[in-house]
């Protein structure tokens, strides 16, 4: 196979960060990141951005009476 390029690494970045690549594809990405400092830095930046977004979006305060209200509505629907 031809050399795995930076362009291919960028194409696979999302799937790699999402753990959606096959083992062989993951090895190609890891091999490239071991050799290419530029791509390795880009992957690190993207991973940090994703982590920050995900952790903030998951911080949700559920109103204390919400569960009670939904259950009451379901009971009325019976």
């Amino acid at each position: 196979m031809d050399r795995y390029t930076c362009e291919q690494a960028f194409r696979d970045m999302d799937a790699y960060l999402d753990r959606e690549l096959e083992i062989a594809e993951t090895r190609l990405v890891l091999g490239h990141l071991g050799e290419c400092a530029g791509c390795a830095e880009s992957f690190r930046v993207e991973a940090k951005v994703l982590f920050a977004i995900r952790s903030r979006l998951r911080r949700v305060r559920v109103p204390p009476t919400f569960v009670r209200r939904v259950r009451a509505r379901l009971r009325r629907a019976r």
Partner: protein
Amino acid sequence: MSTVDSALDIDRQPFESLFTPLLSSAYGAALRLVRTRPDAEDLVQEAALQAFRAYHTFQPGTNFKAWFFRILANCFISRYRRNRKERDDLALDDIEDLYLYRRTVEAGIHGSDTSPVQTLLGKLDEEQIGEAMARLPGDYRAVATLYFIEDFSYEQIAGVVGCPIGTVRSRLHRARKMLQRALWQVAVDQGLVSRLTAPEAS
């Protein structure tokens, strides 16, 4: 009820025992799909009623959460399409890779120990990131919500929104880019970028 239905119901748990543990998670996802807390509650209520009425179609032993989130996503998409007046703030043109990284470096954002992009992200709270998420077009917001909030795999998202995995992959790719651009816009709009590039900022 037929004998067959009765037999199937032997394995069927009460709806509430499966549904109640999902409520907080459903509310969190709904809040990222719609813009306000009353709308989020309303969306979950609507999905809950639909799920309750359709519970006889749920196959015991399969993934109840995926089944319920499919209903929730469908409720959201129907509302979204009904209310087209809701503005999509973001154009669907191409957005460069590493958008947030490039903008923060170009703007000269500086922090004490961290990179420019981390400095910016450290200052953005969940409300601001939620607002950026709300600026995504509905189809993209649905995929991004299932990905960011619920950690669904591409395959699970495809099952929930009813499209091929390849479509999920491409929507998610664009949603991530659009979200980075929206985050930057929120940071600019709210004066955060100005504050972080001011000479005394650190």
